């Protein structure tokens, strides 16, 4: 019933090209995580600030990031901002879109983590003469990052997979982009995408295992 001959050799010959693409994928994922993390910490502080404008801004960010498709977020960064004369390259737009998404999810993660830290921790810090920012930086944040660490690794995996949405804004150097171009030239869709899927899987799995090893090493208390 399947009248199809597999041509794995063709796909495997393109493996070096695809691995180069995988590096770009990993690079975008890591950068978007780093940027997302920094923004998420800022959003968390905004939400804790008690200032209605700041906390409203943070809540809006989190709501939009978590309740609209990641594809739209990336599209908006490329074509949407383009309408206002802000032209981001596919690479930058993809990075901005994913960082936006990461920040929203991570900030929500942090909110949950904060609930697990008793208020008395801040109180203990304040009673030692710390400002509220110092108490957050030195007492609350380290505990928050620890609690949120493993859930955040899910977001890292999600960021890796989200990079594949870059093809929709013309990204052609990451793993999905490279695969798509190879596919367009050869029409060996199954072979190329299956191979790409294996590479995505290996990267995602490696990141998860590395994160666990890191957590085991870092969080000894």
């Amino acid at each position, binding site marked *: 019933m399947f009248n199809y001959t597999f041509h794995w050799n063709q796909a495997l010959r393109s493996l070096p090209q695809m691995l180069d693409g995988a590096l770009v994928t990993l690079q975008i994922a890591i950068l978007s995580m780093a940027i997302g993390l920094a923004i998420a910490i800022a959003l968390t502080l905004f939400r804790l600030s008690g200032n209605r404008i700041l906390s409203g801004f943070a809540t809006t960010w989190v709501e939009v990031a978590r309740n609209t498709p990641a594809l739209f977020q990336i599209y908006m960064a490329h074509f949407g901002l383009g309408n206002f004369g802000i032209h981001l390259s596919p690479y930058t737009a993809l990075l901005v879109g994913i960082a936006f998404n990461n920040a929203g999810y991570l900030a929500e993660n942090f909110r949950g983590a904060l609930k697990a830290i*008793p208020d*008395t*921790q801040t*109180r*203990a*810090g*304040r*009673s*030692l*003469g*710390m*400002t509220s920012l*110092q108490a957050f930086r*030195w*007492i609350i944040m*380290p*505990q928050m990052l*620890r609690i949120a660490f493993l859930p955040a690794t899910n977001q890292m995996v999600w960021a890796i997979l989200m990079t594949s949405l870059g093809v929709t804004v013309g990204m052609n150097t990451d793993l999905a982009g490279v695969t798509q171009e190879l596919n367009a030239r050869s029409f060996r869709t199954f072979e190329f995408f299956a191979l790409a899927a294996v590479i995505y899987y290996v990267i995602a799995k490696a990141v998860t295992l590395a994160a666990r090893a890191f957590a085991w090493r870092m*969080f*000894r*208390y």
Partner: protein
Amino acid sequence: MIEIENVHKSFGELKVLKGIDLTVSKGEVLTVIGGSGSGKSTLLTCINGLEPIDSGRIVVDGTDVHARGTDLNKLRRKIGIVFQQWNAFPHLTVLENVMLAPRKVLGLSKAEAEETAVKQLTHVGLAEKLSVYPSRMSGGQQQRMAIARALAMSPEYMLFDEVTSALDPMLVGEVLDTLRMLASEGMTMICVTHEMKFAREVSDRVAFFHQGIMAEIAAPEQLFDAPQHPETKKFLAATH
């Protein structure tokens, strides 16, 4: 000197402090006893400005704690407080717990902060536990660490809020011994406690709180042996 003048404090409808007047001199050890909800713990958190007051005044060495413009962070450096729940910072070792505030608040170098921390931890008998995480210690040890953490800021006053109440009875002694040692060294202390024997032994004066009012304050022999206020009599009869 800590001067407390006609302090009122409510939590919503609940009046917790109803006009407290009290002066604590340098070097004095005052213990505060009384039933739950009598306002004694609230008073401590008002003294270092963790809780605002509704009216009245609390003045520490001439600084009005609750006045606008008072730098509470600066004021708190000289008023150490230790709570019933010791609030160890779980992500830091014992040494790091004690070093944190001297480094970040007082701006001491790592070496200076470590020297101070080791000194204070040795003082409370935890010299062997420097690199241990708090979760590996007993409640009594964690509470002594919390005391060392407050002492590392070189406070002039120490407030103790029922520091033995959450402890296993076996561990109460070691913490009280630490407080006794501080008292004998001349530290100005206000101790809210349920340990009557301890109160009698270390205090210069004992205050009895009842329903937000300081019903009686006197030297320990007088308050324990010849209480004047009917509520004091009732309380002491019930706790002896």
